[in-house]
């Protein structure tokens, strides 16, 4: 058994035995089928030991989003990322292969690449100048004459690659567990929805406009819940809909609209739903001006040609909020965005958001402006909605401090009728059961 796992299991048992925390993973979720109650114990959002256990049982074993293919198009392109607490370099090497390695010098541990992005044939550590190719190979030593023969070729002395790296429809994922199932198996039913999103491009999607980097003083799971939580829209975001109403001449109404939650396997969920507002592909709304109507209709006609009426209608008219377990959110609505959370502490996460557009749209100023404006008005950290989400999530985290007197979160909505309406909470129940089962599965290794 690898030593990290042994260490973790020992800690786990110490924690179980110490009685200092009353956390038993199997009891964090309380399900009462007869009375249709689904409760999550608030320690799940605050406990430091659980946070460490999540890192091992979930983040070290799941496929995690690391970047988009459009960020590393040319040989030598690279970006640096932090994924589950580790600094990584994602690069296209000089041969054109995608690489991902720990951004850590094999010599004495210094972080090597400090830029957020760039193009380089090699990376040199500032401390003692060990030099690596963009494929991660050690190509230069400072004072090589006093190193033993074969030292430079030793696998331990290369930049350490992450064990698994794969991509689906332009999204690049990594897995820290070399024994994990394949990415396609992991994505399971989510692939159907990723296809509906990526098919909006004739060839491929590209990132547009840069990146939004912000933070919330809240547990990372709160954002996973929030992303597929539709019944918060009207109470929490009236000022957003007021603004859209002022833009369009009338306040958007949800009357007659429908939506459904789907459970896609491995903890992934989606809410697919009608929208009272517009979609860049391809549902025009009055606030976008008459002049943009024709081009949006042309895009729609193209979808019909490519996919037929039914699928084109679904792609163009329905919104999708997709959560890829554990920490990736794709919002396909008035803008198309990828949101990735990085857990920092039980009560803190960093959030990074990118906007996506079909490559053929990227040169169209009006279309890009429409996407970026829609993105920042709703999902931007200075927009008309996201600051209120942050406030709500941070208020939840504050409330969890009282867990000894008020211990349970409720997710019972829709449980009695056993429906999967967009306005219910089944998608969150599904997420939490997956979360618990993954933690338990890891603990069973010890039994």
């Amino acid at each position, binding site marked *: 058994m690898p030593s990290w796992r042994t260490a973790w299991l020992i800690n786990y048992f110490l924690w179980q035995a110490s009685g200092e925390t009353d956390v038993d993973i199997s009891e964090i979720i309380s399900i009462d089928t007869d009375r249709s109650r689904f409760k999550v114990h608030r320690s799940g959002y605050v406990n430091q030991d659980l946070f460490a256990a999540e890192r091992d049982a979930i983040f070290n074993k799941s496929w995690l989003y690391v970047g988009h293919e459009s960020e590393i198009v040319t040989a030598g392109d690279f970006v640096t990322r932090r994924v589950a607490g580790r600094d990584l370099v994602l690069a296209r090497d000089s041969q054109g292969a995608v690489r991902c390695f720990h951004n850590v010098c094999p010599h004495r541990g210094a972080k090597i690449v400090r830029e957020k992005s760039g193009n380089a044939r090699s990376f040199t550590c500032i401390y003692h100048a060990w030099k690596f190719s963009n494929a991660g190979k050690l190509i230069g030593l400072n004072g090589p004459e006093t190193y033993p023969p074969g030292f430079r070729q030793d696998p331990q002395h290369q930049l350490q690659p992450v064990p698994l790296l794969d991509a689906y429809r332009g999204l690049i994922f990594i897995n820290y567990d070399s024994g994990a199932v394949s990415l396609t198996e992991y994505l399971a039913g989510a692939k159907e929805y990723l296809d509906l999103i990526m098919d909006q491009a004739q060839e491929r999607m590209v990132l547009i*406009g840069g990146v*939004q980097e912000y933070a919330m003083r809240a547990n990372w799971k709160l954002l996973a819940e929030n992303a597929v939580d539709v019944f918060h829209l009207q109470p929490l975001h009236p000022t957003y809909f007021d*603004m859209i109403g002022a833009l369009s001449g009338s306040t958007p109404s949800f009357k007659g609209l429908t939506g459904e939650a789907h459970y896609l396997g491995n903890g992934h969920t989606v809410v697919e739903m009608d929208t009272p507002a517009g979609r860049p592909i391809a549902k025009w709304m009055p606030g976008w001006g008459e002049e943009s109507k024709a081009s949006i209709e042309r895009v729609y006609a193209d979808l019909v040609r490519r996919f037929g009426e039914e699928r084109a209608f679904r792609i163009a008219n329905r919104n999708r909020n997709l959560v890829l377990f554990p920490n990736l959110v794709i919002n396909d609505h008035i803008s198309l965005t990828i949101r990735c959370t990085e857990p920092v502490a039980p009560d803190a996460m960093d959030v990074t958001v990118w906007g996506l557009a079909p490559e053929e749209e990227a040169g169209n*100023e009006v279309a890009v402006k429409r996407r970026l404006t829609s993105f*920042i008005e709703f999902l931007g950290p200075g927009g008309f909605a996201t600051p209120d989400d942050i406030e709500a999530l*941070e208020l939840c985290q504050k409330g969890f401090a009282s867990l000894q007197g008020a211990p349970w979160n409720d997710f019972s909505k829709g449980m009695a009728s056993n429906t999967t309406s967009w306005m219910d909470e089944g998608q969150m129940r599904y997420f939490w059961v997956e979360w618990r089962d993954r933690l338990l599965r890891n603990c069973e290794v010890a039994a």
Partner: protein
Amino acid sequence: MSTPETPSRAEIEDFIFHEAELLDAWNLTEWRALFTEECRYLVPTPSADPYASPDSTLHIIADDAFLLTERVKRLGKRTAHAEFPHSKTQRLVSNVRIAASSGDEIHVRSVFATFRSRHGRVDTYYGRHEHILVREAGALKIRQKRSILGMEALRPQGSLSIIV
């Protein structure tokens, strides 16, 4: 528009300090009235070129006159949850200079530190303002205000729910 008489730095400072005072007092209606009819309020994303066009580069805020009006309306409502009850804010503005004048425009630079306290926590936003001012009927007005944050990202501040 007539050629503006060159303002003194004292006049410009008074204007900029008055603006900060209105914001600290949450007198946003009066603050909104400081802008010209066509106007912009921009807060670039810290990681991006601050002078990149908001049409092609993500901004934290890229308000035109319509959105700025809507933002002020929003911040006056109880349902602007992130700012209800209002945060307490204190703005320091310094290093005010007239950087250039061209045509009817007066380009003013200043630096700022804006403290926002809320729910027992203090967030600091800092950076520089670049105002483009014009004179309308004798009074100074803001044609554009660009607030360039000095942080690397909105971390740990998280969001920007106030006017910086």
